[in-house]
């Protein structure tokens, strides 16, 4: 059997590894923009082929699949989905594990995802507003900040999925710091508009969402168009630096508990989260009249206002979260892929090992916001020592060149995974491994990772916050006011901010449309 993969990061390395473990003895074929040293080795070992190409080019990717005569294609990252790679591969009669273009709107447009969620009345929502320009945002925020008090505490995001970049959370509670914060907010919105002008496939540029707090977790699923099967929960850690400080990244590391749940999420919360993701899949399938085949993930947060809440969606596995679950997966992944293609996933028993996992990303200094600094450093890895110390290494943003050297590409260069009885034990194993200098940049430029991911202290803190939030949302639930927001403005009276959303929900349809383009 011939299996072809698309994408060159650590998640894709983990996918290739899971495929290589299959009893179907697949030959592995791969296409990515840089030559991932880990995937390259698996391709060579199984006597497949590796091509370098633009993975957002549907014709190019589909032609390679045809040329190699593969039996199925698996998409790793999101951008090929957005660009219709799946559609083109399937058009040529080759089964594909990945979301078609119009279905991947769930991830591509954070604004459209939210509109679908509200229109279909799906749980775990957030208030939001979208803007097509910086000036529009400034004017509107000024006009409405009296009327809609939630606009004072917001997350500012690019309206399109943009590699996890550009998200800012601004809580403007202290009147005495208002000047400083609003000045910063304005400058950031101007930056967002500039940044988003590079994307022509969406009209919404800036998304402003209600600020919420609570523990975050990722629920990744297999989908075959009829059935959605949830995997073990993973917690990703988005802040670049120790102590949860610093800019948002694609994820600096992630952990799982033993089994399906995280130590701070209950079974019921898991089920509710799963039902939110299922409803979103149903909704987008109805909107597009297409079938979703592949991976989907809900980036969730337990919030006071809604309980399990959908923050964003992925039309793929998370990175690093995908590495955790793929390492835990016991069922043959090709059996699962075949079941997805035939839409008989409900008949497959999918098993994950009952063990805690931790993944930590290692990145050159400069990541995530100053990637030019993080790029083009020669990197060396002591893989024998990694293995000896009980860890696994997944190559990420790195390129193996013709002469056998590996250069960084500006993002997370490797991810290390370890198993343990507890996340803490696994985390410690990775720390011991990294203390042995297993990853080095030969020019002396610095690397960084987060020592605190999976630590007892971190889990204790997350648990504390989860308990606090749970007390609040279960109370709201008992009182019958879960999801309800209400405000009172002098001389105007009671305001229901949900009613004010109608403009976003109905008059803007087509704003980031999955019908256009």
């Amino acid at each position, binding site marked *: 059997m011939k299996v072809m993969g698309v994408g060159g990061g650590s998640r894709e390395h983990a996918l290739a590894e899971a495929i290589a473990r299959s009893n179907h003895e697949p030959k592995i074929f791969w296409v990515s923009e840089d030559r991932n040293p880990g995937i390259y080795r698996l391709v060579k070992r199984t006597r497949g082929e590796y091509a370098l190409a633009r993975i957002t080019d549907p014709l190019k990717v589909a032609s390679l699949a045809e040329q190699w005569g593969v039996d199925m294609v698996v998409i790793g990252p999101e951008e090929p989905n957005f660009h219709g790679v799946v559609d083109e591969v399937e058009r040529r009669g080759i089964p594909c594990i990945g979301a078609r273009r119009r279905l991947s709107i769930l991830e591509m447009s954070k604004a459209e995802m939210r509109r679908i969620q509200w229109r279909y009345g799906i749980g775990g929502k957030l208030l939001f507003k979208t803007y097509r320009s910086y000036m529009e945002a400034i004017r509107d925020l000024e006009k409405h900040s009296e009327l809609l008090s939630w606009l004072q505490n917001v997350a500012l995001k690019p309206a399109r999925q943009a590699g996890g970049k550009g998200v800012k959370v*601004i809580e403007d509670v202290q009147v005495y*710091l208002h000047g400083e914060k609003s000045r910063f907010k304005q400058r950031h919105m101007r930056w967002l508009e500039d940044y988003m002008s590079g994307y022509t496939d969406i009209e919404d540029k800036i998304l402003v969402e209600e600020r919420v707090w609570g523990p975050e977790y990722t629920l990744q699923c297999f989908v075959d168009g009829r059935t959605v099967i949830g995997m073990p929960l993973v917690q990703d850690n988005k802040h*670049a630096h120790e102590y949860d400080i610093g800019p948002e990244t694609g994820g600096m590391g992630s952990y799982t508990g033993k089994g399906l749940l995280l130590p701070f999420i209950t079974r019921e919360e898991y089920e509710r989260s799963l039902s939110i993701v299922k409803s979103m899949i149903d909704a987008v399938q109805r909107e597009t009249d297409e079938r979703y085949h592949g991976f989907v993930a809900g980036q969730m947060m337990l919030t006071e206002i809604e309980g399990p809440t959908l923050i964003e969606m992925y039309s793929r596995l998370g990175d690093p979260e995908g590495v955790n679950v793929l390492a835990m997966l016991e069922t043959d992944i090709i059996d699962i892929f075949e079941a997805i293609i035939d839409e008989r996933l409900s008949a497959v028993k999918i098993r994950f090992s009952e063990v805690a996992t931790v993944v930590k990303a290692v990145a050159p200094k400069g990541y995530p916001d100053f990637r030019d600094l993080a790029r083009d450093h020669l990197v060396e890895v002591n893989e024998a020592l990694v293995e000896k110390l009980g860890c696994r290494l997944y190559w990420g943003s790195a390129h193996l060149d013709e002469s056998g050297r590996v250069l960084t590409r500006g993002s997370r260069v490797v991810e290390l995974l370890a198993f343990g009885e507890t996340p803490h034990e696994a985390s410690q194993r990775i720390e011991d491994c990294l203390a042995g200098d297993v990853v080095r940049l030969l020019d002396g430029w610095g690397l*960084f990772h987060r*020592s605190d991911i999976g630590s007892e202290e971190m889990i204790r803190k997350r648990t504390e916050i989860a308990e606090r939030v749970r007390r609040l949302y279960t109370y709201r639930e008992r009182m019958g006011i879960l999801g309800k927001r209400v405000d009172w403005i002098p001389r105007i009276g009671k305001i229901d901010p949900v009613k004010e959303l109608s403009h976003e929900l109905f008059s803007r349809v087509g704003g980031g449309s999955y019908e256009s383009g």
Partner: protein
Amino acid sequence: MPGLIGIYPFGLGRENWRLARFVYYGLLALQHRGQELAAIITYGDEGFHKLSREGFVDEAFTENDLNAMPGFIGMGYVAPSKDQHPVFVESPVRMILIGDGKPGFGNGVQDSWRAFGELLADEISRVGDSLKAARQVVEEVDGGYSFMALTEDQELIAGRDIHGVKPLEIGSLGFDLGAVVSESSALDVLGMEHIAHIEPGEVVRFDPYSIERSRVKPHSRLNMSKCSFEYVYLARPDSIIDGISVYSVRERIGMILAKERPAEADVVIGIPETAIPFSLGYSRASGIPASLGFVTTGRKVRTAIKPSIFERLMGVQLKLNPIRCAMDGKDIVLIDDSVVRGTTLRNTVWNMKRRGARRIHVRIGSPAIMAPCPYGIEIPPPDELIARALDEREIAEVVGADSFAFLSIDGLCRAIGLEKGELCLKCWGCEKR
């Protein structure tokens, strides 16, 4: 016991921040740690900016000062003495250093913070890596201190001595700012998240691209020497120091005091503001109702550490105006946080009796202060400490109370929840073996 704050921006648009006002409000929250000198230091496109003034924070700096001060990295400092200025080191590494406590350089060194700054700069230039250098300095220099240095290379380096005498806490704001502060309440005031404390013997470095930590080999718990005075007296009750809530310590002190030194009374009254938590704990454990006994006028003044006797007496008059009906015709447990010279207490007891108080049993929420602090907390000279000269019965006579009792040292340790060996108890006259 100065107060320190450092605020550092990360990521895209980091230079868009103007942090002087953040530092200012952080300093307001730390005002109790030093009322004689205040400094705001920022770093921006044109290098360092520095404003250093005498007096209270809100008087020292004007709106215009804050509006005119650029800079996207901020550092701030309040000190209890006009002579404790931030240290400016010119070479071999240009940086500004602020510190709390006292680095141990022996008696030959006049200005131990200058010596510390120069040593740090030398080591950074010698070792090359400022994190390694700072860890070495912390390993070499004994004493009780925490410090923060901002270098010209935009590195903010903070650390604590190996015994953990002085506190340092860490916080964040959204995806943008990280902060290091003497007390977590400063983070609350800035709307920041309180995340963790820096460990004893640990140094942390913020640079534009990373946060890195390094720790002198972990010492056994018995080598710790956390300042107990912080918990009893210095810190704000809404602060959390090394994971321990200051308010809960003070409430437990009151409860322990009620068990150790019970008294028959109609009401428990705490002297504002620091002794209120003690009085609530005492009331809860004894079953005697607590009452508000005094209202204060003017700003909070720390009478025990005010320099001159004149200012001290003025402090008392302004600080404590009795509420008559709370004490008229009643037997009272009166709780204060400490007794240094007894002056404040004598005035207070006299005032209360004039307002109709019958019996007054004075209880102190700390052990007797017996010795100077080797780490820079300003305590009057030994010959001015009443507890060194008189026993409890005699102090009662002097201040005009019906009984008088200190908290025991064991009681203090139990209230904090740490072993004797983990705390610095030197000011209570308790030396380590």
